């Protein structure tokens, strides 16, 4: 029996935006949970009223931009933010935008480009990611070496807290250290502190020139070796990415072998020289079909190819293992990894973000994620890294044999969560225990 009061919800957002027939709800949901209702608010005050209602009746509430993860919200409310999709302001003088959370990340990128500006963070999953989701997940990506991780681009927000209260914070100043830094702390909190209803986003001028250099390689090791050469030569491209043969065709149809994509965003003069230098390094390193892409449409196509690969992996977070090592330690990492995975090229999916020292593995059917992650973490730790995020911390504490540190960390995380959401109603599917 659900405590959800459908008629009250209809009173808040209007009949048309409360959906409780399972067949109609399906397109807004993913996962195994069975929420009682999908609701689509159009304003901050509607979000606030819905959350107040949920909080009063102890109803679980999950939030998503286009699609809501239903884990933990059986019998509860799935809130879809897609109607709150406006750009409220595009401020050229201050290089900022005010955006509603339900705007698709890819739509936002288009609008920003039309305005002659640049929003560096990559969409998590191209087709469905929203701007709100971008900051709720708050990841880094293959451009972070140059531009910084996602949080760098948030200057403030409006948020509905788990009690329904509305919190506004931040301003258009690019330098602001007033108070505690809740602005950046909220990035990556996955909707456990509250629901973003407005985002004050930092933008940059568009780079003067964009170019890409691509090439294919017979092995992951050979391809990766060229990255080390570039770093040694003090060349730091915007992206320096490698996709194994199994995934490469998604990025670029008919690719044979492992695909290297080097993205160069910057100035015209240096761009020309660096592109030539990169192309030589790739060719000398054993790359074939090495090509400098200068033409805009072809460049966009290549980058979109990369984003498709990224989306493919991010769409199934439970089936990937991500780890980081020192960028120059990547050759050892890949060699040791091969002992665990077999031929890297034939593995279901491997990507390397060279400047970040980041690797993402798409697991084959039947692989036990935790078992593999544990082995991978040991490998990574010996090379100055670890498995990513919360899981990585747990595994690190295991390696240190420091159960107390893990206990301290998780109890701090849950205390923080509870301070903001005493009843535990908001996004209960998000686990802070790995």
């Amino acid at each position, binding site marked *: 029996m659900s405590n959800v009061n459908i008629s009250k919800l209809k009173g808040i957002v209007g009949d048309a935006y409360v959906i409780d027939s399972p067949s109609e709800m399906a397109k807004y949901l993913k996962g195994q949970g069975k929420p009682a209702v999908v609701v689509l608010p159009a304003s901050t005050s509607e979000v606030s009223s819905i959350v107040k209602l949920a909080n009063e009746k102890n109803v679980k509430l999950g939030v998503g931009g286009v699609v809501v993860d239903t884990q933990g919200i059986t019998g509860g409310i799935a809130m879809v933010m897609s109607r709150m999709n406006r750009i409220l302001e595009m*401020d050229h*003088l*201050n*290089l*900022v935008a005010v955006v509603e959370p339900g705007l698709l990340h890819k739509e936002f990128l288009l609008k920003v480009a039309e305005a002659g500006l640049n929003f560096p963070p990559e969409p998590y999953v191209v087709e469905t990611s929203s701007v709100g989701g971008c900051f709720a997940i*708050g990841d880094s990506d293959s451009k972070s070496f140059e531009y*910084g991780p996602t*949080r760098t681009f948030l200057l403030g927000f409006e948020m509905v807290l788990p009690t329904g209260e509305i*919190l*506004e*914070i931040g*301003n*258009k*100043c*690019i*330098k*602001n*250290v*007033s*108070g*505690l*830094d*809740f602005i*950046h*702390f909220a*990035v990556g*909190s996955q909707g456990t502190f509250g629901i973003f209803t407005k985002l004050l986003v930092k933008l*940059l*001028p568009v780079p003067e020139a964009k170019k890409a250099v691509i090439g294919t390689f017979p092995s992951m090791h050979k391809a990766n070796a060229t990255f080390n050469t570039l*770093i040694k030569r003090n060349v*730091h491209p915007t992206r320096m990415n490698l996709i194994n043969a199994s995934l490469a065709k998604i990025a670029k149809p008919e690719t044979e072998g492992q695909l290297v994509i080097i993205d160069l965003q*910057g*100035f015209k*003069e*240096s761009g020309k020289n660096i592109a030539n230098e990169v192309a030589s390094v790739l060719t000398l390193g054993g790359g074939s079909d090495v090509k400098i892409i200068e033409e805009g449409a072809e460049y966009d196509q290549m980058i979109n190819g990369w984003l498709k690969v990224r989306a493919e992996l991010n769409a199934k977070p439970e089936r990937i293992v991500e780890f*980081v090592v*020192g*960028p*120059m*330690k990547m050759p050892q990492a890949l060699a040791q990894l091969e002992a665990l995975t077999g031929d890297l090229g034939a593995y279901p999916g491997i990507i390397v973000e060279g400047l*970040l020292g980041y690797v993402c593995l798409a697991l084959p059917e039947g692989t036990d994620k935790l078992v593999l992650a544990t082995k991978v973490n040991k490998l990574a730790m010996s090379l*100055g890294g*670890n498995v*990513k*995020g*919360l899981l*990585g*911390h747990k595994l*690190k504490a295991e390696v240190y044999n420091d159960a*107390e*540190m893990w206990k*301290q*960390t998780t109890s*701090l*995380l849950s205390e*923080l969560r509870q*301070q*903001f959401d005493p009843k535990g109603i908001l996004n209960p599917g998000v686990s*802070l225990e*790995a």
Partner: protein
Amino acid sequence: MLSQAVVKRLKEIVGERNVVTDKVGLLTYGYDGTLLSGEALGVVSPQTTEQVVEIVKLMNEHDIKLVPRGAGTNESGGTIPSEKSVVISFTKMTKIHEIDTENFVAVVEPGVINFDLQVELAKKNFYFPPDPSSFKASTIGGNLGECSGGPKCFKYGVTRDYMLGLEVVLPNGKVIQTGGRNFQSEPGYDLTRIIVGSEGILGLVTKVFVRILPIPRAKKTMLALYDKVEDASQTVADIVAAGIIPTTLELMDNLLINTTEDFTHAGLPRDAGAVLIIEVDGYPEDMDGQVKTIGEIASKIAKEFKVAQTAVEVDQIWTSRRSAFGSVARVRPSYGVNDITVPRSNFPKAIEGVLKVAKDFGVTIGVVAHAGDGNLHPLILFDQRNKEETETVHAAEQALCMMALDLDGTISGEHGIGLVKKKYLDKEFTPAAMEAFRKIKRSFDPSNRFNPGKIIDL
């Protein structure tokens, strides 16, 4: 007074010489870069994380608060001892554990002086971008605590952008690690970010993983001179509109031009209304184009524009800027540094606002500004021994803060809140935001043991 038993125990933990309890010794730890002062019960200087843990446990047993301190150069009162507290000084934790240029990471103890790290990094042709003007004295731990800025923020961001991971002793004496050696290691919540800029009220940092970068291959330093400050701010707006991101856009007004000239003899014309220091960095082949564009923009309105031709000229320019705060002491014995920031588009209005405050309160104000960031440091000159004048100065400082907030800005761009600006914090933040700060403080430090009374009260 600390009991003999506690003093004895402290000396056992950190060694005889690393505990200060005498009156004169305590006095020297009672000050920072502000006009405030306080007196601690004792000062203790640990050398290891284990010692920090022991100190925290001991203080908890005796219900004594801890106030962390680096070099004490802050402008917020963040290290002023509060009642019934012991100062924990990190100046003896000065090891640089590791500089790993291949992987863009350095691992340091909190007491390492920013400049000392820069010197070591420079040997490997690397650097740590945050370099507040105090960098010759201030520590990495202090920079972290206040989330310091500096002249390079327009392109490179502030301290928080270069913190990859921390080792932290929590108020309950337990040790955790936040983040790691890369961007991807935060455990669920971005704990590193909430500790950076928290002025020691959440935890004591005992190890810092910082991001380091190769020194850019090329750099160009330019100087533009103006009749009026307003003209300089026009150049700033035009440069940004042209899509150029300089590392630096530093502004000094006529007063500062003169006080720094008295000291450096750099040759700045004393009758100029304002000077703008502009710096770009990157690949050598991109420099000429940017310098040309900036030159064209600046020359539309500046009375003089020049490009530094030699390293000596560059040094001279920077010596003027870096000595700006100290140089005003020649005019009056005391100065109050303010740290307001406004959205870039409101920068000209903020300059007007500063002039108005100077006039309304009858005080002398010089302006140094990171103009690209909209970050102004109005320096109010006065004599602290004159009580009445001091009161007026405080009123003027408040007026400056309120002016910044009226222009949709903030009361702290890079110096922090500490004690000095705590009283204005609820003018900038709504009750919900203030409560969010308290929720965070309560989660880390429910008994209010670490640096109590700074930023917020529980």
